[in-house]
């Protein structure tokens, strides 16, 4: 330990005191408690009763539990590819350095920082079956009959996902832009001199070079889709008939609407395993490369 460190040590304990208290009270204790609660049957008022793995079995095999997991998967199937491809395409467009591009980049990121509930409510009005602008647009184009965007069980989940794609795409664009900065520009210039067209450059240079970032964006998008909550509570409340209830929303509903603390805790640990598994996968692959 050097002189500077010895000097700083005098106040170090005071400096990390709040952080240590917070870590114990608001993180470690709740994580441990939640783990214990997940093995009990408890309605928050009575006495928790130990039920072994029942909650996990229910979360993974009961009809509603399976429906929630399938919904989460389906939601990810819409959200992840759409958000990733759009984010990537926008990054490419913005990266061209064409005049006025800063304005577009600023604009695309804007939805990401808007208040989720507020913009979701705006979308809800656009989704309105009879008076909404989306169906008016469809009928103007003579494309289809009015669609019940939020009350048709086959569509509601997709509608929620689309709103979140709209909101998050700019964020993924920024991540892709950060990735593009790391590509060696001389490669692209050399390819141009060799007469490669834009499409070939994207396919043979940018895509392979950007693979780690793409992988990362896909993982983040998967985690985000499992945690979706704000858009769901604003647009559908998980309905109709749980058609748009994904894992993040189901945890809230089971805990604070149905007061089934055990099941909700078990589901939060399922979510945790999904998030942890994805993060670990990313970590491992990063380690292997390094």
């Amino acid at each position, binding site marked *: 330990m050097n002189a500077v460190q010895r000097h700083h040590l005098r106040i170090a304990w005071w400096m990390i005191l709040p*952080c240590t208290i917070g*870590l114990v009270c608001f993180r470690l204790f709740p994580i441990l408690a939640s783990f214990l609660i997940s093995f009990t049957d408890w309605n928050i008022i009575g006495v928790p009763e130990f039920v072994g793995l029942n909650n996990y079995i229910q979360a993974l095999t009961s009809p509603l539990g399976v429906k929630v997991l399938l919904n989460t998967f389906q939601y990810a199937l819409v959200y992840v590819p759409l958000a990733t491809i759009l984010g990537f395409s926008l990054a490419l467009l913005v990266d061209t350095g*064409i005049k006025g591009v800063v304005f577009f980049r600023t604009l695309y990121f804007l939805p990401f920082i808007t208040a989720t*509930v507020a913009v979701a409510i*705006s979308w809800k009005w656009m989704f309105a079956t009879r008076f909404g602008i989306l169906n008016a647009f469809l009928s103007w184009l003579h494309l289809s009959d009015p669609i019940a965007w939020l009350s048709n069980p086959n569509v509601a989940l997709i509608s929620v996902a689309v709103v979140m794609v709209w909101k998050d795409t700019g964020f993924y664009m920024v991540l892709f832009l*950060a990735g593009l900065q790391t590509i060696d520009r001389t490669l692209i210039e050399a390819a141009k001199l060799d007469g490669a067209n834009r499409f070939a450059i994207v396919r043979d240079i940018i895509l392979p070079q950007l693979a780690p970032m793409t992988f990362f964006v896909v993982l983040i998008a998967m985690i985000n889709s499992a945690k979706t909550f704000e858009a769901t509570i604003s647009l559908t409340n998980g309905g109709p008939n749980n058609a748009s209830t994904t894992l993040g929303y189901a945890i809230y509903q089971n805990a604070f609407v149905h007061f089934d603390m055990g099941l909700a805790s078990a589901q939060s640990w399922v979510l*945790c395993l999904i998030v942890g598994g994805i993060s670990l996968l990313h970590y491992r692959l990063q380690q292997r490369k390094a």
Partner: protein
Amino acid sequence: MNSRSLSALLIYLGLLAYAVVTLFPLLWMVITAMKSGRELFRLPPSLVPDLLMAGTPFVNFAAVFDKAGFLGAVLNSMLVATLAAVGQLITCSMAGFVFANLRNRVFTAIYVLLLSTMFFPTEVTLIPEFLLFRQLGWLDTLLPLIVPSFFVGAFGTLMMTEFFKSIPFEIEEAAILDGASPFGIFKDIYLPFGAPALASLFLVAFIANWDEVLRPVIFNSSPEVRTLPQFLLDFVGQYESQWTVLLAGSFLATLPLIMIYIGCQKWVVAGFARSSLK
């Protein structure tokens, strides 16, 4: 037309197309907020709001303020977002000072534990936190939304630690020779040096707390402590048909964030990008 200007044209078309997609929901929110109740249900929907044409575009915006609880919700949101962000600055910069400088077994253990909590989604800690706050008598107050930010922030601590590590050793040595106290060094060297990271952290925390829905909904149910997102959700349930006023309120709820973003764009974008790249 040569191929170069053709490709420029295509790029602009692509940029414009998505600009419309990005802007339309926000624009439609404002347009609808400037319609009268009668105009709202006209088919096909009119693109030019009638209240704007009549020269009274802000009627619905004024009406929001007359709704019980709106002003209170604005104040609550301001209070929560500001204090929670300030809390993050204090606790994360202090912890970052220690973790950037000192590594004994205990400090390292705390640091590793803290960072590993980032793997646990907030949903895991919600129920025990609810029980804790109930025990403390904090339910239906703003405390659960503010106090934890004064005590723990894994991402913020990581960010400040990394940032503080780059402070040149020689400056500190010189300051110590000049008789500076450890806290003086923290205050006069670390904090000014860390200003860009602190600004990013403040903005990200402010925006995230302003936007937070899950925690307010769970910890607070009484009208006096509602935050803006809660107010809007309750509004939807209460007066489903008053879309014009509701969307005026929604726009007002998102306006502060838009203004912050326009004012401090670079820090906001950098902060959010960093928060995920770690």
